[in-house]
């Protein structure tokens, strides 16, 4: 009198959706892989800021000085480390 529930069809539909999603993810993953790798090897894109601002020494002075001070700090640390070196001490002969 009542129809039997269709359990087999539901399972195969879910499997199909699952496979479709997996394929989609593979494609997405592939695209992002190519995107990030090409991004790392190609040169940085030219900034879209107007040339006058980018080349203006007043506008870039802060960055110029910051970069220079960063280099200076790194070198001072390296120099201090060298000064404490014992590699020039004469070994006991």
């Amino acid at each position, binding site marked *: 009198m009542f129809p039997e529930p269709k359990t087999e069809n539901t399972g195969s539909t*879910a499997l199909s959706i*699952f496979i479709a*999603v*997996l394929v989609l*993810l*593979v494609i*997405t*993953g592939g695209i*992002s*892989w190519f*995107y*990030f*790798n090409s*991004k*790392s090897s190609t040169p940085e894109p030219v900034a879209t800021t107007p040339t006058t601002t980018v080349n*203006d*020494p*007043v*506008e*870039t*002075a*802060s960055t*110029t*000085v*910051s970069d*220079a*001070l960063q*280099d*200076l*700090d790194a*070198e*001072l640390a*390296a*120099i*201090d480390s*060298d*000064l404490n*070196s014992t*590699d*020039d*001490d*004469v*070994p006991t*002969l």
Partner: protein
Amino acid sequence: MTYQRFSILIVGVLMLVGLPNLSYAQTNDTTTTKKTTDLRESIKTKRDEAKTSLDDYKVAREEQKLAKLIQYGDKAISERTAALTEQKSRFSAKNCPTVALTAVNDAFATINTNLVAQKTVLDASTTLEGAKTATRDIFQKNRVYKYLMPAAKGACIAQKLISIIDGRLAEAVTKLKAAGIDTVAIETKLTEAKTAAQSAYDTYLQILKTPGGDDDGNKTKMNAAKTSLQTVRKTLGDVKSDIANLLGTYRQKSKNPGTRTLDEPVTP
């Protein structure tokens, strides 16, 4: 069952989207690590050889001591020569202005020549005492690690700072002046910074010319040069703040050269 499939999907998403990013990040990390590879690590084989040779000398029988000491001295020279070559390759026009680079290269060449000459003396030693003196000279007359290398680094950075002061920062002052802004305070600080950088450079040059022998004198000079560089650091930091404070006024004046800003006095 549904929960299990959902978990697999989440893991799949993380792996597929995350892996490319991870590989990208790893590439960058490797580059950074490669750049900062320690000099001593890069000549590890030579250092190990010298150390083994010294150990051999220490345990050698009396009649073998002379030969073993000469062998050790030669290894020590070889290690120092390798350190010089490696360190020299790290300086280029990119991180060291030409004038400093020339001085650094000359100093490295002088030490190399000294080491070659000392090898000849050491190899010709006929007594153990003579060989000991020659071996001590390898270290004491060529303070490669303690003075030559740091002085070279110091000379390069000092000259680089001078280039920046004379270059981009001088240009900035010119632009500020052209916009009608008072730059006297900034100019004074830049002069002070340049004088200190020049003083540091001159001191490092002196050390580069005599990196061996006068240990106490070189130590004093290294400290003096460091103090000068710290002065440059402070003064340039002040210049940076001064320019940043003037940026608003500068932008306004650059846009409208004729307009008066709020901080300007009104002329009757």
